[in-house]
C-alpha cells in the first residue's frame, strides 16, 4: 500500500474515498468529457444495473428497457454539464433521466395502466449486487423506511406514479377512485415522504 512509500503524508480527506463512492462520479465524468472510452465503460458498468432495473420496472419490456438504458447513458454523456454533484448523486441523476425517457416512451405506446399488484411487488428488496451497492443500499433503506410510514393508499399512489409512470388520472382508474382523490393521495404521500426524508437528514 502507499503508506509504505518514503516520506509519505496523507492527502486531503476527499482523496481517500473509495472508488465506488458516489463522490467519484463527478470526477469520472471529467474523464468521460476528455473522451476516455474506458471511463465511459466504467461509468456504464457502475450504474448499468440500477438504470436497467428502473427501465425494466417502468417499461415492462426488455427491448424497450434496453433502449431506454442505452439512451440514458448517451444523454448523460452529452449533457454532463447539467450534473450537479452537490445536489444529487450521479446515480440519482441518471435514474431521473431514465424515468423521463421511459415515461415519454410509455405515454406514446402504453394502452393501459400497469396493474397495482405488480408495482407493490417492486418494493421487495433486490437481490442483484452492483458496484457501490453498499452506498446505494443505505440510500434505499432510508427511502423504503420512509415509504413504509405512509398510509397504504398514499404509498400505492406515489409508487404507481413514480415507478409505474402513471398519471393521476391513471392512478384514479386503477384504484377506482375519483380523480380528485387520486391527486390528493399522490400529493399528501409525496409531501409526507419529503418531510420524513428531510427530518432524517436534519437528525443525521
Amino acid at each position: 500500500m502507499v503508506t509504505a512509500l518514503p516520506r509519505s503524508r496523507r492527502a486531503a480527506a476527499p482523496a481517500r474515498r473509495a472508488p465506488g463512492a458516489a463522490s467519484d462520479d463527478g470526477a469520472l465524468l471529467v474523464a468521460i468529457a476528455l473522451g476516455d472510452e474506458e471511463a465511459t465503460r466504467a461509468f456504464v458498468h457502475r450504474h448499468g444495473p440500477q438504470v436497467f432495473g428502473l427501465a425494466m420496472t417502468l417499461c415492462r419490456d426488455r427491448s424497450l428497457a434496453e433502449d431506454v438504458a442505452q439512451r440514458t447513458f448517451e444523454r448523460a454523456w452529452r449533457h454532463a454539464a447539467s450534473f450537479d454533484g452537490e445536489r444529487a448523486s450521479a446515480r440519482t441523476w441518471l435514474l431521473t433521466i431514465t424515468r423521463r425517457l421511459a415515461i415519454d416512451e410509455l405515454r406514446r405506446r402504453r394502452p393501459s395502466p400497469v396493474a397495482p399488484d405488480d408495482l407493490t411487488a417492486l418494493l421487495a428488496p433486490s437481490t442483484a449486487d452492483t458496484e457501490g451497492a453498499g452506498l446505494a443500499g443505505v440510500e434505499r433503506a432510508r427511502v423504503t423506511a420512509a415509504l413504509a410510514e405512509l398510509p397504504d393508499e398514499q404509498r400505492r399512489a406515489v409508487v404507481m406514479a413514480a415507478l409505474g409512470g402513471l398519471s393521476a388520472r391513471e392512478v384514479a382508474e386503477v384504484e377506482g377512485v375519483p380523480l380528485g382523490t387520486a391527486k390528493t393521495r399522490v400529493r399528501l404521500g409525496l409531501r409526507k415522504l419529503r418531510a420524513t426524508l428531510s427530518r432524517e437528514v436534519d437528525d443525521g
Partner: protein
Amino acid sequence: MVDEGRAPTSPEACAAVRESLELLALDALDAAEEAAVRAHLTTCAGCRAELERLTDVVAELLAEAPALVAPADLADRVVAATLAGGPQAGAAGSEPAAGVRARGGVRRWVVGAVAAAALVAGGLVGAVVGRATSGGGEAAGPRAEVTYEVRTGTLVASSGVETGSVVLTAGERPTLVMRLDHVAAGVAYGCAVRTTDGEVVEVGSWTPADTTDTTWAVPVDDAVVHATEVLLTGPGGLTLASAALT
C-alpha cells in the same frame, strides 16, 4: 389549479400552483394542467425552487426499483453511440462532449476531438482551451474562452512497459484520473504523487471489482495539483509504475 385571473406571481397564484407541484414532480398531471403550472413557473422563482426540492424527493424514490443485470453489451452500445455522434467523430471543437458543473454555475467543457484523444492516449503537454457556457442545461448562450489546465502522463513499469495513462486537471475541481491497460480484480492498488519539492503524497487506493474496472478518478487537493510524477503502487507498497506529468 392556476387561476389565470390572478397576477402571475401573487400569493394566491402561488398557493394554487403549489397544490399541483407534487403531481408535476411526478409527471402525474394531464398535459393541459401541466402547461398551466409551467406557465406560472416561468415567472416564479419560489415555486420553481419548490418544484426542484420535490423533484429531488422523487429522484430518491427511483432507487426503490430493483437493480437488474444489465445487457452484457450495454457499455459497447453506449461507447459505439457516443463515438458515432460525439466529438471524436467530428472536427476539433465542434461539439461539447460532456462537462462538470462547477460551484456557482454551469461550466461545459468543450474539448476538441483531436485534443481529447491525444491527451488521453498520448500524454501531450498543455492546456485545453474550452468555452464556458453560462446558464443551465443545454441552453445556448454567450460563450467566453476559458483555459483548463490538463497535464498528462504515461504510466511506465520498471520493466519499461507502458501500463496506462494519467490525467491531472486543475481548476475549480482538480481531478486525477488513472487508467490502467490491465488490472487484477480484488487487488488493492495505491496511488501517490511526487510534489514539486520531492515529497511523496498519498492520494488514495482502490480495488477493482473485476478486470474491466480499469479507470479510477478521484478529486484531489491543491498539494496534488502541482505534482510532477504519479506513482502506482501494489500490495505492500511496491511501486508498480510511474508517470512523469508534463
